[in-house]
């Protein structure tokens, strides 16, 4: 059994820690660099849904009434984009960095 410093409590062998990064408007509503424990088998979409539900405005910015990502939302896992259609069946694993952000506007 490992000790998980962040929570100061024993860490179960099957616990996993992932980091969620929101940017721009999503960051303002939900924060960023959120480190959280997830259970094995947790999917990308359900993880973000759980985090976003902490702020109704943040949730509404990312998800529609049916609990689907708005079409304009961009998703990344470990720096690689994933399609919205695949996110519900994309598992997150220990050490993953998940990013969710609105359309880019650089330049």
């Amino acid at each position: 059994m490992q000790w998980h410093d962040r929570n100061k409590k024993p860490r179960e062998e099957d616990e996993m820690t992932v980091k969620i990064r929101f940017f721009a408007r999503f960051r303002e509503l939900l924060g960023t660099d959120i480190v959280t424990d997830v259970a094995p088998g947790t999917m990308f979409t359900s993880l973000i849904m759980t985090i976003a539900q902490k702020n109704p405005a943040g949730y509404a910015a990312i998800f529609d009434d049916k609990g689907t990502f708005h079409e304009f939302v961009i998703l990344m896992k470990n720096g690689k984009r994933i399609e919205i259609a695949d996110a519900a069946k994309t598992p997150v694993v220990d050490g993953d960095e998940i990013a969710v952000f609105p359309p880019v506007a650089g330049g």
Partner: protein
Amino acid sequence: MIAIQTGDVDIGTLITAAKKKGTGAVVVFDGIVRDDEITEMELEAYEEVAVKELEKIGRDATAQFKLLHVDIIHRIGRLTVGENILIIVVSAGHREEAYAGSRYIIEEIKKGVPIWKKELTKDGGRWVPGDHAHGSGKPR
């Protein structure tokens, strides 16, 4: 030089460095904070990913347009009206390649590099919508 940074750069120095052997043209693109009745502009990036994507854009432009040198410097943080946001310096043997390469780089940046701008006004702020406001998370 490919970078995302808060500080400005000396464009003259970049131009000098871009004059590699065989250079016949240097094109500089300098994107500037426009006075759209704003007080300042706040820029934010997913830096680790954005730098890698800028590097790829630079490599692709070099291969496609036979560029001899590429600099892409995108600034983040809080900038005031008139300040440089994005500096692209390219050199090539001929003006056609230099212009085309520079144009390719800026358009690719606007398509997908994770950088955002917020215009700060007296009444608060507004996030600038991108030119490509249809994410749908499709892989590049």
